[in-house]
């Protein structure tokens, strides 16, 4: 359907660090690894960042039951430390390519990051992937409660 452009999630947060440091954190494999490492029994068998135009970012989460969910994208714009744009695709749904745009604005030593995640698909192919993420959120909540 031509009128279907997907959903958008937009988030803004300010960090007490320079734009360079925040930008570098955002492109760090360590951050990617921790992002999907939801608990002690979870693993991230892959967390790779190839920071150049056309370079790939890839993360794989392995759940405690051994099942894996892989995701990643390709950098399409790198303007350190101001802007970063990448595509984002989930392995179980390769035909739906999302877009993640980040902007970094430094003022008085703090840096505000604005993320716009667009082209979030609106159909049933995402249900399985949603379940995987719910498991992660449950795990984090357990950790916080414990």
């Amino acid at each position: 359907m031509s009128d279907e452009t997907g959903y958008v999630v937009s988030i803004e947060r300010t960090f007490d660090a320079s734009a360079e440091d925040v930008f570098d954190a955002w492109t760090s494999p360590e951050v990617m690894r921790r992002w999907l490492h939801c608990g002690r029994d979870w693993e991230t068998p892959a967390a790779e960042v190839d920071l150049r135009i056309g370079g790939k970012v890839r993360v794989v989460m392995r759940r405690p039951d051994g099942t894996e969910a892989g995701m990643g994208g390709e950098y399409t714009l790198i303007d350190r430390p101001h802007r970063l744009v990448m595509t984002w695709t989930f392995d179980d749904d390769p035909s739906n390519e999302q877009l993640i745009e980040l902007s970094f604005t430094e003022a008085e030593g703090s840096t505000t990051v604005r993320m716009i995640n667009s082209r979030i698909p609106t159909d049933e192919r995402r249900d399985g992937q949603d379940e995987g993420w719910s498991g992660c959120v449950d795990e984090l909540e357990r950790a916080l409660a414990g």
Partner: protein
Amino acid sequence: MANDTFRALAHPLRRDIVERLSGGTATVGEVTRGFGVSKPTVSRHLKLLEDAGVVSRVIDGRTHRLALRPQALAEASGWIESQRERCERLFDVVGEYLEERKERR
């Protein structure tokens, strides 16, 4: 299913219909007034909303009244919420990482 709801809400005209119904039930005429589209077009959009379970229709004699089904919309917002949680988590991790680096200096 949430996916049907998203498909149903993918068109601006259908979103307008849902918005108008959020204030309460209305007749087909009331809900599509001023859209400037043909009757078959309106019918097609309404059918899509009904099939998706977003809108229900009660026929009272010659009057068709439409109502929203809030639970369908709640399912859809849950899906977007999970997308947002994933992104928020990434922001959290970036924040923790930056704090750790600062402490190490």
